[in-house]
């Protein structure tokens, strides 16, 4: 029992420590990167339990801001190989367990 309690505590600790966004790969310009990152964070926080809604929100906002057509993948585990327009891709982790990939290809 003590073990699980500790485990929970560790988990909480981990969540708290790893709540920040961590950009793994991007070729966006600085301004765009920051904006996109913030957007992803707000979307993931808003729809913490529903990745689909978060992805939808991100996609729509990005389409509005930077022109169509954007694609968003959010998940805890996935693999992808995409072709995207240069300087229009962001791949980041968030909240300790989520991976978000946003790219543009029209």
């Amino acid at each position: 029992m003590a073990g699980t309690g500790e485990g929970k505590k560790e988990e909480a600790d981990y969540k708290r420590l790893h709540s920040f966004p961590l950009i793994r790969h991007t070729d966006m310009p600085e301004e765009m990167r920051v904006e996109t990152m913030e957007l992803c964070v707000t979307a993931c926080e808003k729809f913490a339990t529903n990745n689909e809604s978060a992805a939808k929100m991100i996609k729509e906002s990005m389409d509005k801001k930077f022109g169509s057509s954007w694609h968003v993948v959010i998940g805890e585990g996935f693999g992808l190989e995409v072709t995207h327009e240069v300087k229009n891709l962001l791949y980041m982790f968030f909240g300790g367990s989520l991976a978000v990939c946003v790219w543009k290809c029209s």
Partner: protein
Amino acid sequence: MQASNVHKVPGAKLPKAPIKKKDEEEAVDVPDGLDEWSHLKATVKPSNQLELSEAELKEEITRILTANNPHAPQNIVRYSFKERSYKPTSVVDHLAVHFVLEGSLLHKDSDEARRLRIRDGLPNEHAPMENEAESDENHAETPATPVEDGGEGEEAGEEDRPDSVASKPDKKEAKCTNQFNFSERASQTHNNPSRDRSCQTEPPPRITFSVAANQWEIYDAYLKELQKQEKNKEKQKTTLLKKDNNTSKKKMTLMETQSDDITKVGKVSKIIERMINQNAMDDIAQDFKYYEDPSDEYRDQEGTLLPLWTFQYGNARKLSVTALCWNNKYQDLFAVGLGSYNFSKQEGGMFLLYSLKNSAFPECIYSTTFGVQCLDIHPQHSYLVAVGFYDGCVAVYNLKEKEPHPVYKSTAKTGKHTDPVWQVRWQNDDMDNHHIFYSVSSDGRVVSWTLVKNELISTDVIRLSGNGAVSDGPDGAQLSSISHGTSFDFHKQIDNLFLVGTEEGKIHKCSKTYSSQFLETYDAHSMPVDAVKWNHFHTNIFISCSSDWSVKIWDHTINTPMFTFDLNAAVGDVAWSPYSSTVFAAVTADRKVHVFDLSINKHEAICQQTVVAKKKTRLTHIEFNPISPIIIVGDDQGNVTSLKLSPNLRKKPKSKKGQELPKGSEAEVAKMDKLLSLLREPELSTI
């Protein structure tokens, strides 16, 4: 012509009125004739019509219109060659053409048109009628027109023919053209050729990106990032500290670079200078370090002084050395105060810092407007130098700041002395960690100065009066007789206790806590007391010297001197040695340094040596180096001579108290006590 002109003049005067009158006349006239239906008509009047009386209406105004041009000049003259005189020309053109338009078309009902039609053979329903009318009306013209027609009619016919033939049945009417000036022309504009063009844009560049996200990768990435952040934090801390240092350094370097480009090589050149000096005076350096006078072994007691470097500075040549002070932290560094003891020859001052490592040139030079009378380097904060001036000011210089100005300076407001300051001395910091120093001056005050932020705060510790403490004086006269302080020294252990030497030759034992009373007054000398100093080891003993040629050693509990030495010249300064309680040295005006060791000889100096070659020089000050066995002696030519004490002058502690070395200071006290007891016993016996 002339008559018409005459008529015109009145007409021009009334251009509007007569016309209107005419209109009215007509209007008036009409109803006369056609009375019956005039009622049906309403007379329409213009709004601005003149109201005229009956008589005016009846008045008849004649106006004659002529064909004369009113603008034509009437007095044109021409020179007639025939008659050889100017003649007025009567011929003036009165015709004015306002508009001319030649038409190229004909009215279809006109004769010309009819004739054309006939000639073209166009049958017209009107034609027969018109033909009849034409024949009736214009008989005279008919023969003329065909002739004219013939010439142009053919051309017109040629042009028109294809049209007219083709359109005869279709078109109802042909255009009737005036054959004299009608011409028909046609042209076609150029059509721009159209072209097809097409292009294709390059599609935006694309790359493929592939990744696989899973929990363990995300976890690993976060862990790595956290570690990196921690490292960065540590680094930042260190870099912050470094940055602080750097900025301060930068400031320093900035200052230096601003001041001069030469300062860039300043440090290097300083090192080189020291190296050169060391090489040039290698023998002196060797002597300083290793030479022990071998002859001392054969001499019983006497020792010698070995002259080492002489410190000279060109600009200080006219000033006399007024103060010497070793730096406690850097034992090769000492400060030299330069001023003048001569009342009538006060011309500025300076203080210099010399290092034994570079005898050729001072390390620092601070020139001052008034002569420096005394200085003291703070024993703990060796960068603080307190300086007393001839004008009564005291100032504190910070050697760290490369500025030639003091960081603190007393002013008249902050209670500066009114007479030369004869001695300054640092004391322990107060409870708020403010640095404190004391000063004594001829104005009879001992003042403590506290360095607070950016100002000096003064507190009068004691006012010296001639007859001792104020309360002692039986009459009022004592108030005016100020006793002029010339030197002082603080007790090594009892914090409150200090001695003040005066110009009258008295020495007062005072306490910081009683500002109005002396604890004791020693009738020490008959001339100003030049120096008074506590022994470094024995806390009861102090020494004093005066211009009355004498040096006296006192026990502060006893009113009479323990020892008195007559040196046969005015004594400028005296100093206890830092290594032995019984050794002291004094300088006299006759260029001599006297070194005494009471434990060896209670009556005479064990070394008397003339250390300056120049005849008129007076020695003014002497100071022992706290570590090395050397003394520095200042003279009134601005020079400082360093001398090495021979083994005999410092051998005592080793030879006598070989076993008690660890308890050096106690041994020294014991040594002195022994001397004193020896001294007292005979006294007691005599009593």
